[in-house]
């Protein structure tokens, strides 16, 4: 389960991070683009506005100057001036002040002494404060000047024009108030915050008009204005927690004083439409993220639940349960996989079935061998140890019994006898009625196959004792068996037709093993091995039985009865064995008496073995009919 969760989690994490990454990238780039775009936009706008603004101020100045010019050319005013009557002059001045809509008006002598003054408040202006403006006018082309100037704490756009009668005879000075109303008016067409700052001689900067709140505008003071800022571009000012892109524009730089206009646009305000878009974007991103999480979870679930089913199916297969496949009806890759798994289950079940069957019909090793490679006819020569066993007098045992009972008994017997073969890594080549043909060293070669075959035979004998005990408990007769073993190079392989074949071995050596099994009864032993097998079991002790020539073989073969591992022989057994072999030697040397003597004594001193009697009978026979001169000790058996 954890795996699936982990898969789901990983898919989720992957999708969410991917989407998150992409969305973040989109968001940040859009954000950046918008902000820098807004900045660019503002900067452009400010620059354009600055140009217009400067021109507007200049225009305004020109308009004001024009008004004053008209005044200075007014003949009635000249006439009034010519009267030299102060009250008349002042009154005319007031009349003209109202006519041009000015806020302050003064008439000064050419030397700068006040002749008359008119202001709404009748404030008294110190004429000395105007000397710089007059100097400026004096030195200009038409002896006119205009400048921003603060008089009695109030900022004015002052215009000075000489009065010609027709020779220059006085200065007319007219002032127009500069205040927030003007700034607001300028804001109307610049769409920017406008602040005008003024610096008189040796005085600090002061805000004389602004569209910002006074307290905010105060923050613009002094340190903000540098020549660099006034000439180069746009800079940021943070006012009241709001970022303003600002552009400082020098509007006056003269002896009268310095004036700077600061145009500002709020970045936040410019970003306002975008901020709404950004909120919308964030919401959309959020929705997208949630939907993708849900989608990913569904996809993960759609993947993980069939995978879960597939895993369970795979686990069943692992446990060897091919009873059911996996039920997934899909047309995608998962569906294909499920179909494949189902096919695999069927295939495995089929194969398992075959293997089981094969294992039962033929030896498991052979079955494996057959299943592991392509089945083909033909074989290869190799050394194999063949074991044949047979139940003695089985036919007579079967008399009076039903075939069912016989088969039952046989099956039980064969089951018992087959186990030692498997235990010693041999294979049951075939059952021939009550006989068993087992192979050691084929199809898989083992160097100790002869020894194993020998051990197998011994175990079969001991198994037989157990089985006999069971049989006797059932009230049945015990069974006696004979075992013949031979080791020889034979042909091992698949034999038969292409459609029906057996794995088996073929060769003289096979026949010899079979013959030996048949001979056990004759020599009164349960097990008999050929010389070749004996030679390959050096740590085992054997009793040499005879030299025989069996049917179908020209060469005589020494046959032996296996006794036990040499190491486990008792001294007495060893001694008896040695004496026996001595007797055999004497027998073959035709020293009948000596041989007879030993055989006879062994009957009493050792166990009473049929072989002793066999040789005593032979000695007696040879005494009566001595062997021929070319006697080679070989006993010839012509029957099968």
């Amino acid at each position, binding site marked *: 389960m954890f795996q699936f969760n982990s898969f789901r989690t990983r898919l989720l994490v992957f999708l969410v991070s991917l989407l998150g990454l992409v969305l973040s990238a989109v968001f940040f780039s859009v954000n950046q683009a918008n902000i820098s775009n807004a900045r660019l936009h503002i900067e452009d706008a400010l620059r354009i506005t600055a140009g217009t603004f400067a021109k507007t101020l200049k225009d305004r100045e020109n308009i004001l100057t024009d008004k004053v010019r008209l005044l200075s050319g007014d003949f009635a005013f*000249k006439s009034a001036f*010519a009267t030299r009557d102060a009250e008349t002059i002042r009154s005319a001045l007031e009349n003209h002040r109202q006519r041009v809509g000015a806020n302050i008006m003064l008439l000064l002598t050419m030397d700068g002494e006040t002749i008359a003054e008119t202001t709404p408040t009748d404030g008294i202006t110190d004429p000395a404060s105007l000397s710089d403006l007059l100097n400026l006018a004096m030195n200009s082309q*038409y002896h006119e000047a205009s400048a921003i100037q603060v008089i009695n704490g109030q900022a004015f756009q002052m215009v000075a024009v*000489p009065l010609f*009668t*027709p*020779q*220059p005879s006085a200065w007319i000075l007219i002032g127009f108030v500069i205040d927030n109303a003007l700034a607001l008016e300028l804001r109307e067409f610049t769409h920017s915050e406008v602040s005008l700052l003024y610096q008189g001689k040796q005085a600090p900067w002061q805000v004389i008009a602004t569209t910002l709140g006074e307290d905010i505008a105060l923050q613009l003071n002094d340190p903000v204005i540098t020549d660099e800022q006034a000439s180069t571009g746009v800079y940021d000012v943070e006012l009241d927690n709001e970022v303003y892109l600002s552009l400082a524009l020098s509007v006056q730089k003269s002896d009268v004083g310095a004036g700077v206009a600061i145009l500002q646009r709020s970045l936040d305000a410019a970003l306002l439409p975008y901020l709404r878009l950004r909120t919308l974007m964030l919401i959309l991103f959020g929705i997208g993220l949630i939907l993708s999480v849900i989608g990913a979870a569904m996809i993960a679930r759609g993947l993980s639940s069939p995978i879960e089913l597939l895993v369970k199916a795979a686990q069943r297969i692992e446990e060897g349960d091919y009873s059911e496949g996996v039920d997934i009806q899909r047309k995608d890759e998962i569906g294909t996989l499920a179909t494949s798994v189902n096919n695999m289950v069927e295939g495995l079940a089929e194969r398992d079935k075959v293997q089981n069957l094969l294992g039962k019909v033929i030896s498991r090793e052979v079955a494996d061998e057959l299943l592991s490679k392509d089945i083909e006819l033909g074989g290869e020569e190799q050394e194999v140890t063949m074991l044949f066993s047979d139940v003695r007098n089985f036919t007579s045992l079967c008399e009076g019994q039903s075939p069912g009972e016989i088969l039952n008994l046989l099956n039980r017997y064969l089951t018992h006898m087959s186990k030692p073969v498997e235990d010693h890594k041999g294979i049951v080549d075939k059952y021939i009625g009550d006989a068993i043909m087992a192979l050691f060293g084929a199809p898989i070669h083992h160097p100790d196959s002869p020894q194993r075959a020998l051990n197998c035979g011994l175990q079969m004998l001991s198994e037989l004792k157990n089985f006999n005990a069971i049989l006797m408990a059932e009230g049945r007769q015990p069974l006696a068996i004979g075992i013949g073993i031979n080791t020889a190079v034979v042909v091992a392989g698949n034999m038969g037709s292409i459609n029906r074949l057996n794995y088996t071995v073929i060769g003289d050596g096979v026949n010899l093993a079979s013959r030996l099994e048949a001979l056990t009864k004759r020599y009164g032993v349960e097990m008999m091995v050929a010389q070749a097998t004996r030679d390959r079991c050096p740590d085992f002790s054997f009793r040499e039985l005879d030299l025989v020539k069996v049917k179908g073989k020209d060469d005589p073969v020494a046959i032996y009865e296996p006794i036990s591992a040499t190491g486990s022989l008792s001294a007495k057994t060893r001694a008896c064995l040695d004496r026996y072999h001595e007797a055999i030697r004497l027998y073959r040397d035709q020293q009948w008496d000596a041989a007879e003597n030993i055989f006879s004594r062994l009957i009493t001193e050792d166990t009473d073995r049929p072989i002793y009697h066999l040789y005593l009978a032979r000695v007696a026979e040879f005494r009566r009919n001595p062997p021929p001169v070319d006697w080679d000790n070989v006993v010839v058996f012509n029957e099968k």
Partner: protein
Amino acid sequence: MTSIKSALTLAGAVVLLFFAVSSSAATLHATVTADGKGQLVNAVVYAIPKTGLSAAQKEAAKKAINQIDKEFVPSVSVFQTGTDVEFPNQDNIRHHVYSFSDAKTFEIPLYKGVPADPVKFDQPGVVNLGCNIHDWMTAHVLITDTPYFGISNTEGNVVLNDLPVGDYNVYVWHPQQSADTESTSQQVVLHENDDVSLSFTVQEKKQWVPFRAPTRASGSY
């Protein structure tokens, strides 16, 4: 202005002595230069006998200052006190000549041709003339009691002929002069058939020209 007044006072005091001076004549050549700028045109040079002036020396003839092509012609004039001056308008538009000067305040409202009555400049002094409807039109008139005066030509030369023999104070006046006329006066003694040359240097002040808006062609209104 103060200098002129004192000069006139002096002239008035010696007017009765005028006939005592010999009737034989002398010539005075004066060259006026602007300080550092060479010859000065339109400078008035006038000579006042130390012995005073006689009434017989008054000129009776009318004088005129024309308005031609929206300018006063001449732009600088010098008249003896009591001279009647006409202001013939040669243009086909009206002019409005005025003066707020102390020596003569007058006004000839919009008129064409020659006004019926000439203006009598009956006090010595400087009279600045303007035109009410053409701000740039200015003319300067020096009114002086003496009949001995001249205006410098483009070479800055003034010739005063037929000056009676005697002692004179010779003055120079220019509308743009910055210095006192009195301070630049020179004394000269003229004898029979003398031909005296004098040099004057005038400190010129900057000329103030009223603003005249640029037009399609100069003088079109």
